């Protein structure tokens, strides 16, 4: 009996010691809306997580395929309870659940992606993807022969509309007569519908396709038809080796590492982080050999100009779809206007409704 008690007590001390050792690590949690898979939105975030995991003294964990709403709150709450120091929630619909849990755990730092709410211990973050979209638009404009470019897009919300507009401005920089045709699927991830939408664009003569969707179905459609495609989220060339020209990609790693360092040092501020090309949070993948060297050089020069802050994408003169002047020369859209963008620029064919 005595032996057993000794055993138990030593076991307790041991496990407490282990727990202490574990809690000395800085723990970072990630919540993903879809399965990680090997391409797409959550995969890109997970690449960021892997970059964080390489930092000394940092442990990471993630939960994938978490539905927005009640489920999300439970998952985030669980992470906070387990003593995670920093939690990244990576889908728009996690905004309110994150805020709710953040109020209950004032010593944990929460970072929500793509929303707009902040609290004392909660910030939000996103990337200026439209900058990368502009560059991929330049490639599309240079490569199209039919002057029709197809854009399969998920939902008509400012984030997506902004991307379409920047892409179109990029197209027009290289090919002023080209138009961008938009088809809405009203889903982030439905390969069958995305592919059908891509085919409908091919049928109206599009010879370059791009997407604001999470599956590679659009790339597949372009590859089968023998036309070009431009990827999103991550380099999608493995899905369409001949078609794929370039992709607008996310690089969350450097940003996530920066946030971890700031929280550990105590310099982190609960604000909205909206970084762009300069910080490397968004970028373009290496361009395919089919893109002529002269075009590649031009795109890289513009990339540098955007990064240096010398080129503003949404600057006047700028007209909307109907031809109404929205900005005169010398004016530029503010971040607030960009975040609430609900109109198409000239050259886009489609409806924002």
């Amino acid at each position, binding site marked *: 009996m005595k032996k057993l008690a000794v055993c138990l007590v030593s076991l307790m001390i041991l496990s407490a010691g282990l727990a202490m050792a574990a809690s000395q690590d800085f723990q970072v949690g990630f919540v993903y809306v879809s*399965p990680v898979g090997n391409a797409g939105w959550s995969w890109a975030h997970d690449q960021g997580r892997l970059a964080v995991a390489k930092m000394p003294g940092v442990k990471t964990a993630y939960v994938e395929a978490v539905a927005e709403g009640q489920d999300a709150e439970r998952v985030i709450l669980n992470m906070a309870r387990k003593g995670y120091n920093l939690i990244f929630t990576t889908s728009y619909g996690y905004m309110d659940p994150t805020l709710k849990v953040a109020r209950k755990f004032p010593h944990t730092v929460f970072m929500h992606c793509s929303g707009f709410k902040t609290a004392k211990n909660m910030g939000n973050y996103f990337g200026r993807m439209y900058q990368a979209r502009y560059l991929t638009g330049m490639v599309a404009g240079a490569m199209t022969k039919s002057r029709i470019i197809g854009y399969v897009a998920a939902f008509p919300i400012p984030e997506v509309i902004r991307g379409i507009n920047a892409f179109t401005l990029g197209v027009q920089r290289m090919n002023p007569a080209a138009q961008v045709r938009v088809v809405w699927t009203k889903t982030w991830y439905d390969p*069958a519908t995305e592919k059908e*939408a891509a085919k409908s664009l091919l049928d109206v003569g599009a010879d370059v396709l791009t997407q604001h969707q999470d599956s590679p179905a659009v790339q597949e459609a372009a590859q089968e038809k023998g036309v070009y495609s431009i990827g999103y989220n991550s380099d999608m060339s493995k899905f369409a080796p001949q078609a794929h020209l370039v992709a607008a990609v996310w690089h969350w790693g450097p940003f996530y590492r920066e946030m971890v360092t700031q929280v550990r040092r105590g310099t982190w501020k609960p604000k909205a982080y909206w970084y762009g090309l300069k910080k490397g949070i968004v970028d373009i993948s290496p361009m395919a050999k089919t893109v002529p060297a002269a075009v590649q050089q031009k795109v890289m020069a513009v990339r540098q100009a955007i990064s240096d802050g010398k080129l503003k994408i949404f600057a006047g003169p700028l007209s909307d779809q109907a031809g109404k002047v929205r900005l005169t020369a010398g004016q530029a859209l503010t971040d607030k206007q960009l975040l609430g963008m609900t109109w198409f620029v000239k050259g886009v064919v489609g409806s924002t*409704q």
Partner: protein
Amino acid sequence: MTENFAISLLAAAVQSGTPILYATLGEILCEKSGVLNLGVEGIMMIGALAGFMAAASTGSPLLGFLAGGACGALLAAVHGWVCLSFRGNQVVSGLALTILGSGLADYLGTPFVGRQAPGFDPFALPLLSRVPLLGDIFFNQDLLVYISYLIVPLMWIFLRNTRWGLSLRCAGENPDAAVANGISVTAYRWMGTLGGGFLGGLGGAYLSLAYTHLWSNGLSAGRGWIAVALVIFAFWRPERALMGAYLFGGVMAFQLRLQAAGTSIPSSILLMLPYALTIFVIVLASWRRPQSAMPTSLGVNVEPTE
């Protein structure tokens, strides 16, 4: 231009109607035997996953297609077990099957998201594809579409002219008379349920092997429910299921093409079209022929006969 637009639209209608056609035929077979299976959505989901997994691991799309059917039948067997062996409520069991199938496919399929598997690609059927108009629409498709063309007349003959088909229908129309004639109602209902599940699974496999060559969670995206509705539209007849499935597929393809053509109609309205059409057609169908085609004992459980 307009002619090309029409041909490509109709060809797309056939392709996007095919998974629904498989599932609708399956549900017709099942309901003809007197078993209502509302789990088509779940069966399609499992079929899509099983087909993809089998094709990815064996490298044979045809094996994947069959595996999709087999796993669809396996899930339908759960429905048979509940309703035929234990006489459970068919509506409740079917709904449970949808939830079970979707959940299971999500869970088991997560490691397969974003992976690639061999699939079916369109090829022109010799001779037939040279027929003007019809060739471009019907005979420039993939193998699974051609198989579905064969299943429709085969099922039509089976239900009308074979002994097994008549017995199966009898089990759905008048089980008491069937028993009096020495027909095992339970056996034929099992046949309908498993056969229906097999076809539903094939419909799911079509989505992950031919329509796209990808697996994703929620791949069937409501197509199973449309199949259930189309059975009523088709008056439980295979040849009308063909019409209904292509009509629905056509409207789905049409709204995307209308957007691509640069219409100013809001996309939200266009996306409603296929579903609005489903409701409209069902109302029209039941108004013209109130319930007359429905198997009389559909959804009614019978004592197991041994």
